[in-house]
């Protein structure tokens, strides 16, 4: 076995030192009758690297690769070009095969990178502090909601209907058990969001209002009035960002008064990966930092006075506080955070703005062209790189029909909101810098045919 260095001679030598007659003897605490005699059933025997690679390659070829076709899916996962150097960096063995940096003297690489990541996320979101990553956007949103409860000591949360339905589903699931009260609705296929409804629903029981920005249909709403209304009632505003690239072009939630901003960091550095691993972003006000979940890197000095970084404020965490911790999270998504921060460092503010402008320009171009198809209506007044079309036909079958034409043409609202009648004709189309003119033309042609 190529991964196992011990030889049989080593094994006997070691057993001699141990003073055990056999390896089996070392398992004596495991009930004899339950110990498996031979290799376990139902699994193949070991295989060569070549064989494994072939098997995995064969599996992978059964999938349609986003980069091989005109591709327009978004809704919480975005396809951007990732510089080759990002993957090089995350494959450095010293990052890839290291552990959570509990030994700071030999983990400054990870710790400094976390500190830089925290700074970038905080600035991008317009917040004072950020943590060193969560699992993903959906779990980060739930953690923000419960953090809100800890801060406000209230447990009613208003969720905008513009939040990604998977995120809503996670919150609903958790709320069943924690007995949090969630207020939720379905979105309308309209240019206006439910901001007014949310503002009207805030009361003195409200812990937080949660709004996605841009929302799942791609709409962009000013969060300021919601923040003001929430704050007036002693509630918090939690903003959710699933496409951080947008913030290169539009105002940050923090600037507009959000107290906690969470997000999905996948769109920078991480890639699609069929949904995971991704990286949750989590930022808030400095005064709330001790209620925050997740790891934090902080600056300090070493015994010689040199600057260094350590994991800090661990008294919030499970390994110190156990059942009193702010969250149960342990392993989070540091390598994805590294990919995120490396990509964002390569971009810098200038590059991020250019990337965002390019995305917006591509999306405007596509929206204009698609909206001219007879029967197709652009739902959004505002959008960044993603917008919703109302088709003259049901969108879900149209998406499948587009696959037959070799086009991955968007996400149907029928997929995201099964059974929601009023949404069945909705198609969410994301257009990033990776969409070429030919790609847009292919989508246009396909849609035209299907709507005719």
């Amino acid at each position, binding site marked *: 076995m190529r991964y196992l260095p011990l030889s049989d001679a080593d094994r006997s030598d070691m057993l001699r030192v141990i003073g055990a007659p056999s390896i089996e003897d070392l398992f004596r605490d495991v009930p004899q009758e339950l110990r498996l005699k031979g290799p376990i059933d139902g699994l193949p025997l070991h295989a060569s690297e070549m064989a494994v690679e072939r098997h995995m390659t064969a599996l992978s070829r059964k999938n349609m690769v986003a980069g091989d076709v005109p591709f327009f899916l978004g809704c919480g996962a975005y396809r951007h070009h990732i510089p080759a150097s990002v993957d090089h960096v995350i494959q450095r063995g010293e990052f890839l095969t290291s552990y959570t940096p509990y030994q700071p003297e030999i983990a400054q690489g990870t710790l400094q990178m976390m500190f830089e990541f925290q700074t970038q996320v905080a600035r991008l979101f317009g917040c004072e502090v950020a943590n060193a990553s969560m699992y993903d956007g959906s779990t980060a949103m739930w953690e923000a909601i419960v953090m809100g409860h800890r801060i406000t000591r209230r447990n009613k949360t208003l969720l905008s209907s513009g939040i990604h339905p998977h995120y809503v589903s996670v919150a609903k699931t958790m709320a069943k058990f924690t007995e949090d009260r969630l207020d939720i609705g379905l979105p309308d296929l309209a240019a206006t969001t439910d901001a007014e409804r949310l503002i009207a629903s805030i009361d003195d029981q409200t812990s937080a209002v949660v709004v996605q920005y841009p929302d799942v249909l791609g709409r962009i709403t000013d969060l300021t009035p919601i923040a003001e209304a929430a704050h007036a009632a002693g509630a918090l505003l939690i903003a959710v960002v699933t496409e951080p690239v947008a913030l290169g072009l539009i105002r940050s939630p923090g600037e507009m008064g959000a107290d906690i901003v969470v997000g999905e960091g996948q769109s920078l550095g991480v890639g699609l990966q069929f949904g995971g691993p991704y990286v949750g972003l989590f930022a808030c006000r400095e005064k709330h930092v001790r209620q925050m979940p997740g790891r934090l890197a902080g600056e300090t000095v070493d015994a010689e006075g040199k600057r260094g970084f350590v994991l800090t404020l661990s008294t919030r965490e499970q390994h110190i506080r156990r059942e009193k911790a702010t969250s149960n999270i342990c392993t989070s998504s540091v390598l994805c955070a590294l990919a995120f921060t490396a990509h964002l460092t*390569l971009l810098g503010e200038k590059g991020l703005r250019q990337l965002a402008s390019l995305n917006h320009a591509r999306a405007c171009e596509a929206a204009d062209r698609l909206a001219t198809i007879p029967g197709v209506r652009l739902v959004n007044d505002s959008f960044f790189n993603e917008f919703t079309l109302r088709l003259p036909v049901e969108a879900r079958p149209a998406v499948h029909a587009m*696959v037959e034409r070799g086009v991955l043409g968007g996400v149907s609202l029928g997929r995201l909101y099964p059974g929601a009648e009023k949404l069945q004709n909705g198609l969410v189309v994301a257009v990033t810098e990776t969409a070429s003119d030919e790609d847009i033309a292919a989508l246009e042609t396909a849609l035209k045919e299907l709507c005719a």
Partner: protein
Amino acid sequence: MTVNPSGWRPSAPANEQGEMQTVTGNRALMLEEPLIFEIGSVNQTGVDFAELPDRAARLGGLERSRSIGLAGLSEPEAVRHYTRLSRQNYAIDLGLFPLGSCTMKHNPRLNEKVARLPGFADVHPLQPQETVQGALEAINQLALWLLNLTGMYGVAMSPKAGAHGELCGLLCIRAALEARGDMRQVVLVPESAHGTNPATAAFAGYRVESIPANVAGRVDLEALKARLGPDVAAVMITNPNTCGLFESDMIAISQAVHKVGAFVYCDGANFNAIVGKVRPGDLGIDAMHINLHKTFSTPHGGGGPGSGPVVLSEALAPYGPLPFVAKSPDGSFKIVEEENAGDEHPDAFGRMVAFHGQMGMFTRALAYILSHGADGLKQVAEDSVLNANYILRSLEDVLDAPFAQCGPCMHEAIFSDKGFAEGLSTIDVAKALIDEGFHPMTMYFPLVVHGAMLIEPTETESKASLDQFIAAIRSVAERAKAGDQSLKAAPVHAPRRRLDETLAARKPVLTYSDPQPAEAAE
């Protein structure tokens, strides 16, 4: 000019040790590296874009006006920045990483390669299912193999890490109990449990109570039995436990728990020790998470991403979360999620996460399992246990091994700080090991052993590597026993000396602040 406060100084002070200092602060290949905010600028970029046609924005009037403050670097600077940072880390690729409970084993590079195949890496989670059959088949295959390896009935693949898996397991239990109208409120957790166990139980809305260990380092069966009752929803056992011992009373524990209508949750973080040797399903376990980033070797990456699939007993499987992959009668694969759960899986407790879980970890784990096969996985367990016992027996004369008399350990060996001279503790041994070129062991965990040192060598260490580690630790332990106070200065060769954690927590500096204009002008 921006100066790196951490390193580069225009003069060369001599340090305490009288070691030769440099004007750069560098020590040959050990290079100081400033923060990106100190070397980059908002106008610098390492990415080129085609020129943009002008067009009116449709951003709802929310165009950004202020600068964000994101420093950019050109590609050469960025590659160097991260390369230099990386070199300040220890890693499995550098040497033995004996972190007990964490299972830091070799990460095969093949697995990195397969995870990057475009057919896995460049596929969107919401693509129509006919375009992702290979991805679904991969998830399904891994799920089936995890079931075979554990002897369980169902598996939830979506949890994002071990702690998330624990949550998944407890929510299944809660849903099962609620389905029978049984609103129990207590979860029992051994003293020696990992912090995530009580934290998860609390997160899931339970009250946590502790159960003590016996002198042999196992759960005290009698104490447990005494506490069990109709208010107990579940007992969270870790097996092999965090002292590196197999819970020899496991069957009795399960029976006792089941008898009072409660469930057995098993923390499977230590599955590495028994994979292919015994099936958790045969031990009466109802739910167990598997850290793919431990037993199945997906890389830790400095703290994730991980993946925590949860295997479930027949009693709990109906409550497992959405989504999951199922095979249709026609041989194709489909996702069972909110829309079709009604028919296929009506009792699902809900959804834990957007999309389908950690696909990138599934492909790695699948390649790992295929590579080892049934025979190799058994060898994994055997060699990991052999290596740990070799360490236990090679050190028990210099370090106190509290459970050494009770028989062999499993995949990790535990020692205490008993016998160290006044003023010296586990941390001093740990930091001295850094100078010797090793990552320290897990320290001060589990809590049931004083000054605990939990050493998990894993099966991917050679005998030569273990021998060198043993020699180093013996030398350091002798010094600790002899009262060599120079240990308190360790490490001296690492990129940094010991860091002031108190300062960090007292005055938290969690983000970089740009120098004030006055400072900047200096």
